[in-house]
């Protein structure tokens, strides 16, 4: 553990900026999201769950796959400096690890280069993540359902705790150790500082909600695939994409061409399984034409299919979708309802 006095935080951020494009939570007009910072003053150090998730750093809402024109096809230059992120929460770090399961390669064929997404890999592969402990979890936090927690360090390079007057930094990966190892603005942490961290951690843990038993979730959900409960649950959903766009693990996308004359670019843009045209074929046939089918797809994808394909849930319990849903279709309630569906005795089996 190292201690970084807040008086030297700006120096630290500037040092980081020499080697990395540094992203951190920034507040603009009341909204928070991750943006490139070059000084500590730009960073919103208080925000817990940013409005926009950090997936936008690694998988932007729209990005150019390549440009085309009379001279053929060209991909954009990859920026030299790798990405560092300061102030990313435990749940969000885990969400990036999950996305890496999708984009990094194909689980079925991990060695096959064809399934490695170059755009994701060049950003995420060389990134340095400074995760922040959550001192003050919010009532919409439920990361503990998925094996996370306010002090979970999975996927981080350096774990950081805001201890009031200073930050405590703990290297988690070799890459993290390498970066902070020799920094002059850091000092080794002492006993009292470590005790403080334990106290903060205990307090944060006490704020977490009761855990939901998700051990059998994948199977339970598959079992009720054809039950009417999906229609009941989806009745109030208006099929907007707010939940999927704010979700740190939703990654569905569309590919479109944008031309001006003979020049143009092929772009990848966020898409959503909530939209009917997402799956509609040119013939007009749509395998997920009904709202019920789309809501079911979102839930099954996150809590059942992902288990089969990646061995983990595609949800970290960050609570963003709970906050943004315009009809308050709270995913925690949805899950509880579904997982206890059989227990309620509404269907036989």
């Amino acid at each position, binding site marked *: 553990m190292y201690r970084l006095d807040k008086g030297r935080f700006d120096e630290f951020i500037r040092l980081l900026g020499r080697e990395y494009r540094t992203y951190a939570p920034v507040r603009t007009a009341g909204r928070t999201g991750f943006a490139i910072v070059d000084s500590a003053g730009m960073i919103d150090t208080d925000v817990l769950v940013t409005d926009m998730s950090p997936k936008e750093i690694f998988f932007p809402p729209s990005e150019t796959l390549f440009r085309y024109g009379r001279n053929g096809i060209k991909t954009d230059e990859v920026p030299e400096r790798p990405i560092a992120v300061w102030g990313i929460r435990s749940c969000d770090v885990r969400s990036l690890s999950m996305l890496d399961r999708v984009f990094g390669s194909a689980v079925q064929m991990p060695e096959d280069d064809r399934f490695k997404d170059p755009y994701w890999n060049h950003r995420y592969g060389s990134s340095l993540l400074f995760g922040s402990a959550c001192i003050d979890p919010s009532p919409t936090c439920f990361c503990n359902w998925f094996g996370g927690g306010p002090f979970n360090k999975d996927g981080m390079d350096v774990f950081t705790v805001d201890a009031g007057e200073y930050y405590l930094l703990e290297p988690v990966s070799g890459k993290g150790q390498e970066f902070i190892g020799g920094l002059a603005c850091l000092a080794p942490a002492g006993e009292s500082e470590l005790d403080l961290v334990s106290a903060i951690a205990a307090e944060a843990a006490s704020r977490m909600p009761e855990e939901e038993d998700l051990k059998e979730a994948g199977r339970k959900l598959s079992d009720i695939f054809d039950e009417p409960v999906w229609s009941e649950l989806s009745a109030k959903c208006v099929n907007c994409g707010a939940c999927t766009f704010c979700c740190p693990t939703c990654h569905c996308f569309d590919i479109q061409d944008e031309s*001006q004359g003979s*020049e*143009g*670019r092929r772009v990848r843009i966020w898409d959503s399984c909530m939209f009917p045209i997402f799956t509609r074929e040119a013939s007009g046939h749509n395998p997920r034409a009904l709202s019920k089918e789309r809501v079911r797809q979102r839930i099954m994808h996150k809590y059942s299919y992902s288990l089969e394909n990646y061995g983990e849930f595609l949800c970290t319990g960050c609570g963003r979708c709970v906050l943004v849903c315009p009809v308050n279709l709270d995913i925690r309630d949805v899950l509880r309802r579904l997982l206890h569906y059989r227990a309620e005795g509404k269907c036989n089996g």
Partner: protein
Amino acid sequence: MSEWQPRILAILCNWCSYAGADLAGVSRIQYPPNIRVVRVPCSGRVDPLFILKSLQAGFDGVLVSGCHPGDCHYISGNYVARRRFAILKPLLEFVGIEPDRVQFSWISAGEGERFATVVTKVVEDVRKLGPSKRIVKKA
């Protein structure tokens, strides 16, 4: 480099304004060569989307012209269009698109002279504004 010339898209109705443009042509009435014409069946066919899309694609101005009130080939197309334009214009002004970039007129099949005057006026208005920058999409 030669002096900047405004590029104007003229969306003309088939029955009056397009014929008016035609008359200006066959009568050899001079008007600035800055317009590109798109012919539509009726000014009522003009979706504000066409106008915004033209500006986005880099046209410096858009002129929409139809039959005079009462003369619409489809009886009321231009009346409906008029309501649409009546709210489009203040809305564009409100969001900061220079009002002179989007103009409307009524030109009949017999008004070749008037067509030339209108085009000249639009080109001059847009020339004063300079190249369009605000809603133009960059590649």
